C-alpha cells in the first residue's frame, strides 16, 4: 500500500479545479497545473472542471490506484467547504485521508482579484506551498469522542418547543430552559396566524401541554443558562432557577392568590399584553401558561421587597400551601451532549422613528399591540378600539418600521407584510373600518401567501405604495380635524398624499435579542454583522454553528415565520439526533503530542491549556497531554522552548515548508 516519505518516495497528485467559471474565469488553471507538474515529487498534475463532482473525485481515486499516489493536493474552493469531501474521496481511493491538502484559490483568489496575471501567480504560489507541505504529512487516524445522549434546548418559544418534542418523541432526554415564567414565546401573543388564519393559541397550546406532560422533557421555566463548559458530546451546563416564591408542584392554578392580593387592582405593566393592561405583583402570564403556575414579581411584591405585607395570598392558599417566600435562587448543573439555542427575537422600538408619532399620539400602535387588542383574551376582550374606547373608522398600516432602513435596520423582517395583511383582514372583520396599507414592496413568498394577498385586495383593503414620511395631527382640511394624517408619496399615482385615519398600526421589525452578544459568548458562537447568531453556512448548514454540538434554530438565526421556525427546529433536532444515535463523533486528529525525550520539564506549557489537557508527571518530570481533552488549538506547541510539543496536521516542518513554498514563486 502507500508508504510514508521516509521509506519511499513521495508521489504527489495535484488537481486544479476550474469550478466552472468561478476559478477559471480569473485563474489560468492549465498554467497552474503545468507549473506544479515541474515540482519534484509531483507525479500527476491535472486541471478539471468540477473536482468535487463524482467524476472529479473518481479521477483522484483512479490516479491513486494507477499512479500509486501517496499524496493528494487539490486547488479549488475553501477547505471549510470541501476539505471533508476530498478527504472522503481520498479514503475511497485507498489512501489515508490526512495525506490530503487543500488550496483555496477561489474565495481567497479568483473571487477577490481582478488581474488575471496576479491571480494566476497567487494560485501558483499557494499551490507550491501545499506541495511543499504535503510532503511532511503522515497517516493519521481520527479520534472518537462519545456523545452524551441528553440535549439542552434553550428558549421555549414555538421553535424550542418543537425541537424538544421532536427529540423527546425520539426517546432522548431533553432539558428545556426558558427565561420567562411560561413557555410559548411570541406566538402565544398572536391571535391568528397567516395564511390559514388558524387561531394561534389553538395550535400552540396542545404543543405546550405536550411538553409539560412529556416523560422525556424536563421543563425549567423562569430559568436561565449561566455557564457552559466542555465540548461536543460532553457539555456541562449550569442553569440558574429563579425563585417564583410559588412551589410548582403544589400550585394548582386556581388563581385565588391573585384575587386575594393586597393590591386591589393591577398596577404594573402587563408584559404579555405589551403594557396595554396592568397586572398585580402576583400573576400568571396568561391563562394558558405552561407551567400553569403563579409567579411573584420580586421587584414589585411588597413582601419580597420589604418583608412587611399582610400576605393575603398565603391565606388564600392555606390548604395547599403553595406559596413559599423562603424560596431562593438555585444553581443546577447538568450534563448534555448537544445544545440547541432557540432564543428568538425582540421587536424594534418604534420610538426610534419619531416621525411616526409612536408614544406621542395615543392612537399610533404597534402591530403586536393590535394583535393583543384583536385577541379575545386581550386587554379589550377582542374589541378593536381607539384609546378613548371608540371603534376606528379608518386604519392606516405602515410597513417596514425599522426594517429595510439605512438609518435603523437594513434587513427585511420577512413576516411583517404577511402579518400586516392578516391584521388588516381581522380589522375589517371586526370593525368594517377602511384599512390602507402603506408599503414599499409586498413580500408574500410562502405557501398560500400570494393568495392571501389577493384575498386582502378582494376584501377592499387599500394598498398605497410609498414610504410614509410622517404621521401628524395638523389638519389642512375640515375632514382631517381630530384625525391622524399620514403624509406619503404615492409612487404609483405620482404625487404626495395626505390620508387622514383614526388609528395607525406600525409593523415594527424583528431584531436580535438585547443580550444576543452575551448569549453567543456563553455558547461559544459568533454573531453575524447584523447581530443574528451565525450559522455555519447560510445555504448548506443553516442550523449548525462553528462549534460542534451547538445548534441554532428559529428567529435567533434570522427573521422568519412560524413554518420556517418549525422546520429549523426539526432540522436542529435531527442534527443533534444524528450525533446522538451514532454515539460518537470523529474528531479532527489535529491534537498536540509531546516527544518525551525532548521535554525538559520546564512546565511553561502546563497553565496554557484552556481544556486542562496538559498535566505534569511528577515521577517522570515530564509534561503529558491527554489526547481526549486536546482540542488542537496549538497554543502550547508554539510556546514550548524545546520544541518537544508537536501538533498533528500542523507540524512545524509542515508550516515552515508552506512559508517556503509561498515565497518561492516570485
Amino acid at each position: 500500500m502507500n508508504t510514508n516519505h521516509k521509506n519511499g518516495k513521495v508521489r504527489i497528485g495535484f488537481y486544479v479545479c476550474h469550478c466552472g467559471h468561478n476559478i477559471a474565469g480569473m485563474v489560468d488553471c492549465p498554467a497552474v497545473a503545468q507549473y506544479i507538474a515541474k515540482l519534484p515529487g509531483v507525479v500527476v498534475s491535472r486541471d478539471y472542471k468540477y473536482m468535487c463532482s463524482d467524476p472529479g473525485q473518481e479521477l483522484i481515486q483512479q490516479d491513486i490506484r494507477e499512479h500509486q499516489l501517496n499524496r493528494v493536493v487539490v486547488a479549488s474552493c475553501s477547505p471549510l467547504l470541501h476539505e471533508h469531501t476530498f478527504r472522503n474521496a481520498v479514503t475511497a481511493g485507498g489512501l489515508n485521508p490526512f495525506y490530503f491538502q487543500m488550496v483555496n484559490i477561489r474565495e481567497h483568489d479568483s473571487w477577490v482579484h481582478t488581474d488575471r496575471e496576479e491571480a494566476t501567480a497567487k494560485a501558483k504560489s499557494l499551490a507550491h506551498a501545499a506541495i511543499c507541505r504535503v510532503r511532511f504529512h503522515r497517516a493519521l487516524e481520527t479520534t472518537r469522542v462519545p456523545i452524551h445522549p441528553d440535549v439542552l434546548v434553550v428558549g421555549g418559544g414555538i421553535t424550542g418547543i418543537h425541537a424538544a418534542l421532536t427529540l423527546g418523541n425520539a426517546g432522548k432526554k431533553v432539558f428545556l430552559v426558558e427565561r420567562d415564567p411560561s413557555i410559548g414565546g411570541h406566538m402565544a401573543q398572536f391571535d391568528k396566524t397567516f395564511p390559514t388564519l388558524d387561531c394561534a393559541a389553538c395550535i400552540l397550546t396542545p404543543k405546550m401541554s405536550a411538553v409539560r406532560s412529556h416523560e422525556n422533557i424536563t421543563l425549567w421555566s423562569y430559568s436561565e443558562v449561566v455557564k457552559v463548559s466542555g465540548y461536543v458530546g460532553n457539555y456541562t451546563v449550569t442553569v440558574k432557577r429563579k425563585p417564583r416564591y410559588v412551589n410548582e408542584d403544589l400550585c394548582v392554578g386556581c388563581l385565588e392568590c391573585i384575587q386575594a392580593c393586597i393590591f386591589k387592582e393591577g398596577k404594573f405593566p402587563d408584559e404579555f399584553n405589551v403594557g396595554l393592561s396592568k397586572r398585580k405583583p402576583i400573576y400568571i402570564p396568561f391563562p394558558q401558561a405552561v407551567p400553569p403556575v403563579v409567579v411573584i414579581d420580586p421587584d414589585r411584591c411588597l413582601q419580597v421587597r420589604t418583608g412587611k405585607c399582610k400576605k393575603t395570598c398565603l391565606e388564600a392558599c392555606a390548604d395547599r400551601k403553595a406559596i413559599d417566600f423562603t424560596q431562593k435562587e438555585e444553581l443546577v448543573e447538568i450534563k448534555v451532549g448537544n445544545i440547541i439555542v432557540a432564543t428568538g427575537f425582540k421587536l424594534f422600538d418604534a420610538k426610534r422613528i419619531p416621525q411616526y408619532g409612536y408614544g406621542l399620539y395615543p392612537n399610533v400602535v404597534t402591530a403586536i399591540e393590535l394583535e393583543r387588542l384583536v385577541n379575545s383574551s386581550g386587554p379589550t376582550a377582542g374589541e378593536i378600539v381607539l384609546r378613548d374606547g371608540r371603534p376606528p373608522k379608518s386604519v392606516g398600516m405602515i410597513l417596514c418600521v425599522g426594517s429595510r432602513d439605512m438609518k435603523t435596520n437594513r434587513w427585511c423582517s420577512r413576516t411583517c407584510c404577511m402579518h400586516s395583511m392578516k391584521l388588516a383582514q381581522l380589522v375589517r372583520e371586526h370593525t368594517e373600518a377602511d384599512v390602507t396599507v402603506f408599503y414599499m414592496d409586498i413580500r408574500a413568498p410562502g405557501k398560500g401567501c400570494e393568495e392571501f394577498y389577493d384575498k386582502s385586495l378582494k376584501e377592499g383593503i387599500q394598498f398605497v405604495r410609498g414610504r410614509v414620511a410622517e404621521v401628524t395631527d395638523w389638519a389642512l382640511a375640515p375632514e382631517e380635524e381630530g384625525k391622524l394624517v399620514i403624509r406619503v408619496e404615492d409612487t404609483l399615482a405620482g404625487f404626495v398624499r395626505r390620508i387622514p385615519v383614526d388609528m395607525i398600526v406600525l409593523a415594527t421589525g424583528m431584531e436580535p435579542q438585547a443580550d444576543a452578544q452575551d448569549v453567543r459568548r456563553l455558547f461559544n458562537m459568533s454573531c453575524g454583522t447584523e447581530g443574528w447568531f451565525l450559522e455555519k453556512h447560510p445555504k448548506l448548514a443553516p442550523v449548525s454553528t462553528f462549534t460542534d454540538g451547538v445548534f441554532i434554530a428559529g428567529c435567533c438565526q434570522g427573521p422568519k415565520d412560524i413554518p420556517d421556525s418549525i422546520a429549523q427546529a426539526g432540522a436542529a433536532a435531527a442534527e443533534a439526533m444524528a450525533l446522538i444515535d451514532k454515539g460518537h463523533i470523529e474528531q479532527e486528529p489535529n491534537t498536540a503530542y509531546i516527544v518525551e525525550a525532548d521535554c525538559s520539564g520546564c512546565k511553561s506549557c502546563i497553565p496554557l491549556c484552556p481544556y486542562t489537557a496538559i498535566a505534569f508527571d511528577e515521577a517522570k518530570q515530564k509534561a503529558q497531554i491527554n489526547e481526549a481533552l486536546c482540542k488542537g488549538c496549538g497554543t502550547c506547541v508554539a510556546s514550548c522552548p524545546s520544541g518537544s510539543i508537536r501538533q498533528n496536521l500542523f507540524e512545524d516542518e509542515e508550516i515552515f515548508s508552506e512559508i517556503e513554498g509561498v515565497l518561492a514563486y516570485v
Partner: protein
Amino acid sequence: MKYSYFPGCSLKGLGRAYEESLLPVMKHLGVELVELDDWNCCGATAYMSVDETKAAVLAARNLAIAEKAGPRDLMAPCSACYLVLNKTKHNIADFPEINAAVQRALGNAKLTYSGNVPVRHPLDILVNDVGLDVIKEKVVRPLKGLKVAPYYGCQTVRPYATFDDAWNPTTMDRLLATAGAEVVHFPLKTKCCGGSLTGTVPEAGLRLTYILLKEAVRRGADVIATACPLCQFNLDAYQDQISRRWGPARIATVYFTQLMGLAFGLSPEQLGLKRNFVPMKPLQAEPVTA
C-alpha cells in the same frame, strides 16, 4: 462667558428687533458679546446657489476675522447666517478646490483661515453653555398664562442637527418653559415658512406661511416665537394678504429673545416689541417676583 458676535445684515436692518432683544438678554445673563470688526454679509442662501466657491470666500472672510479676534466661539443669531457659515466651514473642509480659492483670496487680504472657530446659535449657547438653571434664576416675571408656539424654522436644525434634534427640537421649548410660558405642542415647528419664496412665488411661499399661522392659532397659541429674522418677517408682515387669500390667520410673531427679555423684567420698548406688525397681547399684570 465671552463670544464673538456676527449680527449679519438682517439684525441691523429689518430684523433689528432680534438684536435689540438679544443684546440686553445676553447682558442680563453675564454673557459678553464682541461684535466682529468689519464683518461683511454672509451671502445667505442666494449667493450659494449661484456660485459656491465665491460664496464660500465671502462667508469665510467673516470666519477669518473671527479667528483673528480671538479663540472664542462665534455666535450667529440669524439662522440663515448660522447655516451659511457652518456650510462654508464644511465646504472648505471637504472640497480642496474651495479651500484653495478661500486661502488664496484671504491671503490677498492678509487674512488666514484654519477652521478652528465654532459657529453657534444662541439657542445652543443659552441652553448648553449658560444653562437653564442660571436662566431660571433671572426670571422675575414668569410668562404665566402666555401660550407660545415654538417655531424653529428649518435652518437651525437642517442639515446640521448639532445641538438639537432635527425632527423634534426642544431647546426653544425648554427655554420658553423656563421663562414660565405654556409651550404649545406644535408639530410644524421645523416646517418651512416659505423663505424667500414669499417674495418671488407668493402663491407657494405665502401658502406655507399661512399653514403655520393657521395651525398656531388652531392650537390656541397666543404668540409664535421664532429664531430667524426671515421667519419672523414672513409670519408677521403678510397676515392681511394671507387672510384675504386663504383664510383668517392672525397671531403675533416675536423673537424668542423678546419673550425671554420680558421674563427677565425688561420693558417691551427696550426689547423692540413695537416693531411688530401684529402686536403681541400684553402680558397679564403680575407683580414682579423678587
